[in-house]
């Protein structure tokens, strides 16, 4: 029986270019999947992601939870006998998935990533109280981690006021310039 899944012939090459990693040299030893602390929660194992990229099965990779659940712990990169920095491949896949609007069951992760970066853009440094608040609003998990706030406040581990960075205007410009350079 033939496999009818649609392949994208340039996908491997594009991901290799975006990540700077030679995905083609992966020989499926499975070391990355064996050592991955989050593999148990993923819909594709890290080694399967690499195989699907080699085969050009773009939709399956970009809609997987794996690319978002990867915690960037670098255990796989450290142990890969083919010296593939798998986190960089995952980064390239996440960026591609977002650009092309792929939905994921692990939707909270990209929401958090976006919220975190907006927080830096706005304040220059992370303002934790606002980070938790805006993440909860965007993700719909409204009261998440609120149980920790009273004790943290009591122990003065949670700043109520935003950080003061005099170069915050410069930070906003940096975000803008990075975006412009990337669009070129």
């Amino acid at each position, binding site marked *: 029986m033939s496999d009818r899944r649609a392949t994208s012939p340039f996908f491997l090459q594009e991901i290799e270019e975006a990540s700077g990693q030679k995905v083609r040299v992966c020989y499926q030893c499975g070391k990355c999947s064996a050592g991955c*602390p989050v593999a148990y929660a993923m819909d594709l194992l890290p080694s399967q992601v690499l195989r699907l990229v080699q085969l050009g099965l773009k939709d399956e990779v970009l809609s997987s939870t794996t690319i978002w659940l990867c915690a960037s712990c670098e255990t796989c990169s*450290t142990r890969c006998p083919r010296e593939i920095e798998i986190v960089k491949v995952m980064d390239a896949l996440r960026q591609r998935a977002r650009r092309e609007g792929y939905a994921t069951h692990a939707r909270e992760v990209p929401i958090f*990533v976006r919220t975190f*970066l907006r927080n830096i853009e706005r304040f220059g440094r992370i303002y934790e109280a606002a980070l938790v608040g805006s993440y909860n609003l965007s*993700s719909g998990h409204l009261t998440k981690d609120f149980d920790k706030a009273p*004790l943290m406040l009591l122990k003065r581990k949670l700043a109520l006021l935003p950080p003061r960075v005099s170069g915050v205007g410069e930070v906003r410009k940096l975000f803008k310039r*990075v975006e412009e350079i990337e669009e070129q």
Partner: protein
Amino acid sequence: MKLAFYPGCSLESSAKEYGDSTLLVARSLGIDLEEIPDWICCGSTPAHMSSKLLSVTLSAYNLIAARKIGAEAVVVSCASCYSRLKSANHEIRSDASVRAKVEKALGATYDGSIKVMHMLELVNKQIEEKGLEEKIRRRLKGLKVASYYGCLLVRPPEVMDFDDPEDPQMLDRLVEALGAEPVEWRYKVECCGAALAFSQSEIVLKLGGEILEDAKESGADLVLVACPLCHSNLDLRQRNIEKYTGLDLELPILYFTQLLGLALGYSAGKLGLGKHMISPIPVLKKRGIQA
């Protein structure tokens, strides 16, 4: 050598005690640290997940600011910031097109040459060169410590070049130098899932549970860390971990600068030991250590 200090966001808020204890022990050991004026967030994991250029640019901004005050090296206590700043240098040095884009975004030149050091490296250097014997005011004899390195201090080894990535020793050497006892355990370099702490909390509770269960089984009185994100997952969320796993843990998590500070004679209050959710005081008392 003039040293700049990059605290990073956590050390100003949820990990204030790590920042304070870093500065205290630095002073005691005669290490002069000058905070980088108007430093900004390094972007941590979310930045590199979204854009390599953004990630390297945010870090390089801080490295250039350190160079402006005449520093030859930047000292960092947060493992995540350390990893980002060091990776930025690596990217800039190894890829001319990345360097060109970063310089364009920053409107400044930067060759990736300022040295980035973790505070733990400085402490280890002191142990190697001069030893700590003379400075120790409080013996930590009998205290059993599980050294937890996590991910970003040691990985990826080509970039971090920090210690053995599978069996690092820097924290263990410090524990020994303080007269305490390092325990052998299996989870010293396993990931706690910090990048997913907000967005996938169940994963973090499971990973944290495995790490703490192994530390407990190894007979450790406490777990020693060098990262504010590890600390927050293992201490701030420990009650949630207990609930999720059904384990009875009650395992204090200390920053290495706090344990070192104790040995140097600082009080529990000065070191911010009261800021932890799981108090280390009972276990210290049990081992006859008056904090």
